């Protein structure tokens, strides 16, 4: 509440004229429980989510004759209060959005502050979207909204007849939130297998300094009904895939540059998309450092079709390849875990609505023919009224190996239920 009050006070400072029109607050209260049925070494055997959440959001449009009004400025605020029973009722506040967007010129928008950033064409798959994500929320069954973490950033968008461009400056490289053994078990190479609370590795984040700013650039335009985009990203891998100090069990986020492109448009009676990216690992230029992630090529193609009757179906194929695999394998030591050169991944999404779209069923399947693992996530949601919504879902990662993406999560299967009241 203190934060909300502070936010409101801040807006008061920004826009004194606001008092004429009080801010309208919206949001929701949600209770969520995710039970598990596979024992492992995490903090609680029986469940991996038990929490109550209050989200408050507001926005304000400046329409006065002052500079903010002339720039058609908008202020957006969204914050979550969380009581997390998984960690003994720990309370938390997460500021998800607090930003101001302005149009200082006809051809330009500027958004400054904490904001969620997304681009690219994949469905739960990301190549050129190197913005931070929360895979813990993803696997325990929180709303999709929580897959994306906000960034503290300055975003300039330019719109011209020839093309449009986004330039994003991120002042703090926020890493992904990944399973760490507390809530979800995962593969920890230091423990030589799937680990829970016994995991004791250290993740060393990039320091908060100018040379660690991240830059993301996108050029995009329409070609008739098709959308083309080029992307450049210069920053850090958001997952700690490289070793800083093996003896001290320290991992770090190696530098990463991504150059990519995508196209999306009508195709065979549906929507098709193709995206690729060259992921350069500048700290392992020759690919012969066994401790640092290799450079990679990533590509995907997707297709979605509306079959009628509120039924949609989508497929994606994703491919990645380590580019200096020979150098990598030659550098490996005898007891090192090693990863394959190629990875293939298929996904399928089926969405169907019932009862005037008040009941939604969504089934999403990942399957990797190269890793022989997969992940099924499905849910049924019911909008009982405009205020009350009930969601029931499952997360089922599976596989035989210990260290592939989904197989390492195989003890994290859960069934969750969420009850939400929106206001």
């Amino acid at each position, binding site marked *: 509440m203190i934060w909300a009050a502070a936010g409101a006070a801040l807006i008061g400072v920004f826009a004194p004229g606001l008092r004429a029109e009080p801010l309208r607050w919206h949001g*929701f209260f949600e209770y969520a429980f995710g039970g598990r049925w596979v024992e492992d070494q995490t903090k609680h055997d029986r469940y991996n989510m038990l929490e109550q959440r209050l989200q408050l959001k507001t926005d304000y449009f400046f329409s006065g004759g002052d500079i903010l009004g002339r720039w058609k400025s908008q202020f957006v605020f969204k914050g979550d209060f969380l009581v997390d029973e998984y960690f003994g009722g720990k309370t938390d506040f997460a500021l998800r959005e607090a930003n101001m967007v302005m149009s200082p010129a006809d051809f330009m928008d500027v958004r400054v502050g904490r904001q969620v950033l997304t681009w690219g064409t994949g469905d739960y798959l990301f190549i050129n979207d190197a913005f931070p994500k929360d895979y813990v929320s993803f696997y325990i069954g929180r709303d999709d909204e929580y897959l994306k973490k906000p960034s503290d950033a300055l975003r300039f968008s330019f719109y011209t007849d020839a093309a449009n461009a986004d330039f994003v400056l991120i002042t703090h490289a926020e890493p992904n939130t990944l399973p760490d053994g507390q809530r979800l078990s995962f593969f920890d190479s230091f423990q030589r297998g799937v680990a829970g609370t016994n995991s004791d590795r250290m993740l060393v984040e990039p320091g908060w300094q100018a040379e660690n700013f991240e830059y993301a650039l996108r050029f995009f335009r329409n070609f008739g009904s098709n959308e083309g985009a080029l992307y450049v990203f210069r920053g850090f891998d958001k997952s700690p895939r490289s070793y800083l100090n093996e003896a001290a069990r320290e991992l770090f986020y190696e530098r990463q540059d991504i150059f990519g492109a995508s196209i999306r448009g009508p195709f065979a009676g549906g929507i098709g998309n193709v995206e690729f990216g060259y992921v350069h690992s500048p700290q392992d230029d020759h690919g012969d450092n066994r401790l640092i992630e290799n450079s990679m090529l990533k590509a995907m193609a997707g297709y979605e*079709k509306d079959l009628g009757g509120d039924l949609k179906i989508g497929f994606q194929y994703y491919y990645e390849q380590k580019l200096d695999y020979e150098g990598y394998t030659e550098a490996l030591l005898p007891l090192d875990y090693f990863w394959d050169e190629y990875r293939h991944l298929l996904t399928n999404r089926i969405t169907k609505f019932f009862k*005037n779209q008040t009941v939604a069923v969504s089934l999403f399947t990942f399957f990797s023919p190269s890793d022989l693992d997969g992940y099924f996530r499905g849910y049924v949601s019911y909008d009982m009224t405009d205020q009350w919504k009930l969601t029931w879902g499952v997360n089922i990662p599976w596989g035989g190996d210990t260290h592939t993406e989904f197989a390492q999560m195989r003890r994290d299967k859960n069934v969750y239920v969420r009850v939400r009241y929106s206001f």
Partner: protein
Amino acid sequence: MKKVLCIVFGCGLLLGTAVRVEAGDPTAEEIVRKANRIAYYQGKDGRARVEMTVTDAQGRARQRVMSILRLDIGDDAEQKYYVYFHRPTDVKGMAYIVWKHPGLDDDRWLYLPALDLVRRIAASDKRSSFAGTNFLYEDISGRGLALDTHELAGGDDKTYEIKNTPKDKGTVEFSYYVTRINKDSFVPVMAEYYDKNGKLYRRMEAVETKEIQGYLTITKMKATDLNASSSTIAIFDNVEYDIGLEEDVFSERYLRKPPFQWIKD
């Protein structure tokens, strides 16, 4: 024929006036074309705040409140729409854009503000529910005139009755629909849909019309699903025509930064 419906609804925005019939009754094609023109091509653009109340068989009500912007592109058929949701609050800020291409699939984009995600929507089924109401997407974005054959089936001293039969029955759930079009104004006042067994199962009505800036405008409409006993009432207010919308409003830029000067609730 036509998009009667669409007209009706989609364009609550656009309904126009006053095309008087010259001597004698026009043919079905002429009636349909005039109604279409009146419904779509009056004013270069328009906006409205739309409040839809869905009532189900148990009498439970749900509400959808949105702002709709519309712009005609070129001489006729092409149009662009921008829809911004104000309520229910869990979808507040969601916006979508439709580029309507008569005779082809529309282009649709949906913006989910919580994820900052611009999704491309596969939209080949235009006869699915619009936002969970009893209106269909096609009621909004229109049904191509050439998709149906139109015949004058009767009427009374105030309305023409037109029977519209789809040329390709496989793509729609009705076998035909009958529209009633006002003889003076050419405004469609009712459309009734019959299923494959010839049973009436769906009705759309213009409940209230007002003249706004010289354009006769439907300001209240009702869509009823007779099988499910549910209905939706749509009320259009803040209707304004010729507001000077620019084409770039209907682009990704304004999904991320809604044009509140036009769509304030």
